[in-house]
């Protein structure tokens, strides 16, 4: 029995954002102000950086097969993990969901024709490309060996690698992030269609609103901090250099003031994606809409107050450590609220096993482990032991790869029919999601144990007793790599050969599914009027469902 409704044979719409201006070729892409095309420019460029970062990761895992290091010199190894981090965090994870899916979807989801500032949107892509070029220049002219954290005075005085261009690149790239955040906030405030009230907003928009707050308020701090480190390096100024009276710990405070909230830039949008996928494939309203929406804002706000939990063993004052530990536990609560609400949404749903749902449930599993292991690190007494070990590496990969990337890939699968107008092979993509989930756990779960046993991070060689777990992790990584390569192939394949999707293949309730796939350049032929509640399948005869569904108790649970 089929789990998706039999839908008629669709044709691609005659005119849509992809074929408009086709004659102008590359020019029509590089000068576009259409948020959907800019999203695709981002999709291509973040994929390039994901690929670069992925190659570095592969080399790291191969190198760690033997205790003395199987592949490269210590210098090269240090460059590999540094460039892996810089490429993945600043140029893949931070822009991935917001600049690709957010860019594409937010205007359509709220019934607008474009973002509030279409040209600034294009500008932010160009800024990203310029910043990325500086970083690639750094990678190719000596590389970078400071760690993605750029701790001073190692980065500002002692490193012999190409720190300056990398720092300039990240500084420039920061403006891209700031402008994207600004664009989202103004758009969500001012351009909602009639009837699209705040509490009818898709939770994806709430998550991006919270993300944008962090982007606008946090990014300037890290940009300035890295600039100061760069100035210290170039002109021998003494901001952080202790031999000139500077304070190396000040750098860490400033760096983490952004870089901890940056974790929420990566994971909040993924939570937004999951909050869309779960109700769609359970065909029921999301459980606790307002709690999920509010918890996004709470994460963004409290997330700014926990940065010094990265510094419990720097010798910071005991009182500061107590405060930051307490606040770190506080920020765990809104994340827990989301996980409980997603799980509760499944209860009495009509659950399909379509690929986006597999990804979303995989996200919940991995994010739960990532979030819970954060409780270990927030614990002062325990952090003395596990700080700066592989436990930390495992923890943040569960959040940023298990969480954010799983959400991103799941989101791509969910909205791919909207973006390209075509479907991808279902069984193959279900298989890919499961491969990704298993490969991820095999790669990173052993690292929790490695960390507790005491293996520090960023080691190009290690005592032989750690070898078994490292080999296990590398074996898992080869499965994980397959989990990433499969979607790359079949999604590209589907762009030409996939079945035509039609406007609403799942079907889902959001405004983006009420327009063509792919959408026209102006998104809607007529400005839509919203007169339904979010994720409401009962009062939407236009979806062609309901007939066989179990009847709800009249206002039973409200």
């Amino acid at each position, binding site marked *: 029995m089929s789990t998706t409704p*039999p839908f008629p044979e669709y044709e691609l719409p005659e005119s849509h954002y992809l074929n408009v201006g086709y004659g102008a070729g590359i020019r029509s892409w590089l000068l576009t102000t259409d948020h959907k095309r800019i999203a695709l420019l981002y999709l291509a460029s973040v994929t390039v950086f994901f690929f670069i970062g992925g190659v570095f990761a592969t080399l790291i895992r191969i190198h760690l097969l033997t205790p003395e290091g199987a592949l490269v010199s210590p210098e090269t190894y240090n460059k590999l993990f540094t460039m892996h981090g810089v490429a993945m965090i600043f140029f893949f994870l931070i822009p991935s969901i917001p600049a690709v899916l957010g860019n594409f979807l937010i205007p359509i989801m709220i019934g607008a024709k474009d973002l509030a500032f279409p040209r600034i949107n294009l500008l932010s892509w160009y800024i990203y490309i310029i910043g990325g070029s500086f970083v690639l220049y750094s990678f190719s002219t000596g590389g970078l060996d400071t760690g993605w*954290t750029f701790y001073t005075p*190692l980065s500002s005085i002692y490193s012999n690698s190409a720190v300056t261009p990398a720092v300039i690149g990240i500084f420039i790239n920061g403006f891209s992030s700031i402008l994207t955040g600004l664009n989202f906030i103004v758009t969500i405030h001012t351009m909602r269609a009639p009837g699209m009230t705040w509490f009818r907003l898709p939770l994806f928009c709430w998550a991006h609103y919270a993300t944008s707050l962090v982007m606008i308020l946090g990014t300037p701090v890290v940009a300035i901090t890295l600039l100061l480190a760069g100035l210290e390096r170039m002109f021998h100024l003494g901001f952080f250099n202790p031999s000139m009276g500077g304070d190396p710990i000040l750098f860490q405070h400033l760096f983490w003031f952004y870089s901890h909230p940056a974790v929420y830039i990566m994971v909040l949008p993924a939570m937004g994606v999951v909050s869309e996928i779960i109700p769609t494939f359970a065909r029921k309203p999301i459980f606790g809409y307002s709690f999920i929406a509010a918890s996004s804002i709470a994460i963004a706000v409290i997330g700014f107050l926990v940065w010094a939990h990265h510094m419990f063993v720097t010798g910071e004052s005991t009182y500061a450590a107590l405060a930051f530990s307490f606040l770190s536990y506080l920020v765990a609560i809104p994340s827990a609220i989301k996980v409980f609400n997603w799980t509760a949404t499944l209860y009495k*749903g009509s659950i399909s096993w379509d690929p986006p749902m597999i990804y979303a449930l995989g996200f919940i599993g991995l994010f739960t482990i990532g979030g819970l292991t954060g409780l270990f690190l927030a614990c002062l007494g325990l952090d003395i032991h596990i700080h700066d070990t592989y436990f930390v590496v495992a923890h943040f990969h569960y959040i940023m790869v298990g969480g954010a990337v799983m959400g991103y890939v799941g989101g791509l699968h969910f909205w791919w029919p909207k973006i390209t107008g075509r479907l991808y092979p279902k069984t193959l993509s279900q298989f890919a999601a499961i491969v990704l989930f298993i490969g991820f756990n095999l790669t990173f779960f052993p690292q929790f144990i490695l960390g507790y046993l005491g293996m520090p991070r960023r080691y190009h060689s290690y005592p032989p007793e750690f070898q078994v777990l490292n080999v296990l992790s590398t074996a898992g990584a080869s499965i994980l790599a397959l989990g990433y390569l499969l979607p790359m192939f079949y999604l590209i394949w589907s762009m030409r050969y996939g079945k035509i999707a039609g406007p609403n293949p799942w079907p889902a309730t959001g405004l983006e599914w009420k327009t063509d796939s792919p959408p026209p350049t102006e998104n809607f032929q007529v400005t839509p009027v919203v007169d339904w509640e979010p994720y409401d399948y009962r009062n939407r005869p236009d979806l062609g469902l309901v007939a*066989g569904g179990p009847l709800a108790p009249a206002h039973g649970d409200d």
Partner: protein
Amino acid sequence: MQSQLPLYPEQASNFAPHVDALMIFITSVCVFFAAGITIAIIYFFFKYHRKQADAVGVPIHGDPRLEAAWIIVPAILALGMFSWGAVVYVDYRHTPSDTLDIYVIGKQWMWKVQQPNGLKEINELHVPVGRNIRLTLASEDVIHDFFVPAFRVKMDVIPGYNHYNTMWFRPTKAGRYHFFCSQYCGTNHALMGGWVTVMEPTDYAAWLSGSGASEANPIAAGEKLFAEKACVTCHLANGTGRAPSLNGMYGAQVLLADGTSVTADDAYVRESILQPNAKIVAGYQPLMPAFQGQLTEEQIIALTAYIKSLQSQPVPAKGSGVAPVKGAETAPPTEKR
């Protein structure tokens, strides 16, 4: 004994059982929640699998009681984790007074250790079992971190005149244990490790005296430096020089020009050598040159040891800038007006 694939390192310090107990507590809570969520998801996944293509779910919008429950229960458990963790941490950050003091200096990419009698070790640390050990940590270059997994302790080693991190532990089991640098510090970060040897106290005493310690007496080295660097020209022992006498200064309260006073500990001595103008002793002019960048960490430790050794000598007539507090001084310093 440990199996081939252990889940935790050996427990060899007073902190290890506490940290492991915390680990077990938090792991239990987390496994409970993770298992609950996973089982619920898998159960719903199969139980409510869509049977009919056009079926929809039961619209349930939420339940404030449930929301309250899953806010309050995790909050209470989190508070428990926080409190227990805080107790262990506060213990770790409050060094007891009866410690055996050992200096540890990190530099790219080696560790230099100096035992109380001046004996020096490289990438090795010998300590007696059952004794509270305090490590005073200094860095010659970048930030390092001294980490002993078997003791479950680590502390950053930070360069700079206002940082002298210390850490303490009490070894509970004789043996040899890894120590690592766990703060990334450049090319050979991974090689910047060594071994802690925990010995029976008698073995430790024998080892300490049998290793030719006299040639490396830090007090003698400090005294030599004190003359070489011309400290002695101003810091006259009888208190008549342009700078305060250092006799009896260490450990006492020093009265400063701004009216406050400060305890003369290692950090104060270090700062006063490297950045003399940071704290001016009452009654004296800021004349001393800064020695920032001109002394190695070892030399600073030697100078500190020498200054410490002046403690027993009588305080001279003009005074050493030592504030008249506690009852320690043999002759109260003259008041200056």
